[in-house]
């Protein structure tokens, strides 16, 4: 009792830096507006919603820009539980833009399918808000809340096609495993709190040193927490939900999951590893090493066997996750900054490329209405533009210069090799070999596009709605620019320094 009383006495209202949380506020307002508008608009005017969603995302992006340009770049709220630094700003920017592209991708799709549009946009915004918060969270509680904030809407989105048993299955699997994973993670978090007597990551970092009486507990806690996020980023063997969910969920949602929520998982992971357990690296570095190797390899091996395009992409994105994990296997020490940069760079490039690819798939599936790889047959012959774009995106994913993907892989390798240990080289070689295997299935799609006949020989052209065109334009442009002038994207990575990490 006394304890509570004393803290109550000490309580003073925190000063809130509204500029710092402006993006979140804008998003919150935006999603309420969407909700209300949805209530009071007739079916004819539902198109307003997508527009609103898009605008609120761009609107939220504005303060991010102003914050980035503002000189005192680090703003810490709620005594360090919610921090706005370059890292968070870059990631917020990424989420908001990715969200905008997803809006572009999905608008036509959502308009045409008989979906509950209002809710769709609402949930999309909510989930994005969760991600934006995740970027800034520096406290177990806020991390947890942000995580659920972005996950729960995602569960619902996955199950969005209510009448479609596949979609249901997707939702349920995602949900149950997600909740289970976060539960396990929570258990780890509770132990962390117990050891560190604080939920503030910076404080935790002080007491997690893997020695003393509680070394075992610390190790256990670290592993469990990592597992929680490993699930989010669908690292093997926690990836099992991903293919099923991706296949079942509506394609735009799949795009959303495979890009945005995965990215969110990664930044949470990075934040925790670098700010909370820098001293715990003896536990998590080997763990990540194994996860990364498994993820790349298993993901590729599975992807090679797929005949369903989306499922193949699911596995490809799994193995891509392995490449993002790669630098983290040495991060912590000197390689920490490089690893952070590599992760950011990879996520940015990967977001652009992958969204672009989903854009093409959406466009093509409007005609073929099929998820088979074979349905891409002869694409180049009747829709050269789409064919070339798809080729560009696939090549970028395969990491072939001068397309964006290669700089992501390059950064990953570079960060990995800054620690010139045999382990690092070993993982690098595994990664190299995997990047070759990966081409096995990317090339397979290219082969369909370029060298195979059109299925059922119908060469009817594809009508691509303007929003989709814009999305494709943005992503393709980004992919090329990142590839040819990698300085641009590497710059993001460079400025994204993370407060609290590297003893800073």
């Amino acid at each position: 009792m006394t304890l509570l009383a004393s803290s109550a006495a000490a309580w003073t209202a925190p000063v809130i830096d509204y500029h710092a949380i402006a993006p979140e506020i804008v998003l919150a307002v935006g999603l309420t507006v969407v909700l209300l508008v949805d209530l009071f608009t007739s079916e004819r005017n539902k198109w307003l919603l997508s527009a609103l969603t898009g605008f609120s995302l761009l609107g939220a992006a504005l303060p991010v820009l102003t914050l980035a340009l503002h000189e005192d770049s680090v703003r810490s709220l709620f005594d360090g539980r919610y921090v706005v630094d370059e890292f968070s700003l870059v990631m917020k920017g990424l989420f908001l833009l990715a969200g905008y592209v997803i809006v572009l991708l999905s608008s036509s799709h959502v308009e045409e399918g008989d979906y509950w549009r209002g809710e769709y946009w609402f949930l999309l915004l909510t989930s994005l808000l969760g991600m934006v918060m995740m970027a800034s969270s520096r406290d177990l509680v806020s991390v947890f809340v942000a995580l659920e904030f972005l996950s729960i809407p995602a569960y619902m989105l996955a199950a969005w096609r209510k009448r479609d048993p596949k979609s249901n299955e997707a939702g349920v699997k995602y949900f149950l495993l997600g909740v289970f994973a976060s539960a396990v993670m929570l258990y780890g978090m509770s132990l962390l709190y117990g050891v560190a007597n604080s939920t503030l990551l910076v404080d935790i970092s002080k007491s997690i040193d893997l020695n003393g009486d509680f070394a075992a507990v610390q190790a256990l806690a670290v592993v469990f927490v990592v597992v929680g996020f490993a699930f989010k980023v669908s690292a093997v063997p926690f990836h099992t939900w991903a293919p099923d969910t991706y296949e079942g969920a509506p394609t735009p949602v799949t795009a959303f999951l495979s890009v945005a929520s995965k990215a969110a998982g990664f930044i949470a992971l990075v934040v925790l590893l670098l700010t909370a357990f820098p001293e715990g690296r003896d536990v998590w570095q080997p763990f990540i090493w194994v996860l990364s190797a498994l993820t790349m390899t298993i993901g590729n091996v599975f992807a090679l066997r797929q005949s369903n395009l989306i499922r193949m992409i699911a596995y490809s994105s799994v193995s891509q996750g392995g490449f993002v994990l790669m630098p983290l296997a040495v991060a912590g020490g000197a390689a920490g900054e490089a690893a952070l940069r590599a992760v950011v760079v990879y996520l940015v490039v990967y977001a652009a490329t992958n969204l672009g690819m989903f854009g093409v798939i959406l466009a093509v599936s409007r005609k073929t209405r099929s998820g088979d790889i074979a349905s891409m047959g002869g694409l180049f012959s009747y829709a050269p533009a789409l064919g070339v774009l798809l080729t560009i995106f696939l090549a970028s994913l395969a990491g072939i210069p001068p397309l964006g993907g290669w700089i992501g892989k390059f950064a990953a390798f570079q960060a990995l090799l800054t620690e010139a240990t045999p382990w690092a080289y070993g993982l690098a070689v595994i990664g190299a070999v995997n990047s070759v295997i990966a081409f096995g299935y990317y090339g397979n799609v290219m082969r369909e596009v370029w060298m195979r006949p059109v299925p059922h020989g119908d060469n009817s052209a594809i009508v691509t709605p303007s929003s989709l065109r814009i999305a494709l334009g943005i992503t393709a442009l980004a992919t090329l620019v990142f590839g040819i002038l990698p300085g641009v994207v590497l710059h993001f990575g460079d400025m994204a320094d993370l407060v609290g990490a590297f003893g800073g």
Partner: protein
Amino acid sequence: MLTSQFLLLGAILFCIGVYGVIARKNAVLVLMSIELILNSVNINLLAFALRNGSADGHTFALYIIAVAAAEVGVGLALVLLIYRNRRSIGLDELSEMRG
């Protein structure tokens, strides 16, 4: 203080929950098992909070309870959904997509 006993209780609850999640084929039961895990976490948090004398644990626990409520809401909704579509809430039928 009886911290260690609380922790033990938490651990046991956690294990039961995990067992439930893995072993049960019934969606609702799985949901309940997850609730068990979450509550074991809550117990841990509170025990630590009392031992360390800081309020963070309580706060965290409150958050978890709130979020858990939301999760259950969504979960039950999903369960209803599959029940509508396939007149059963057995999880093992949910294996259309594999491989």
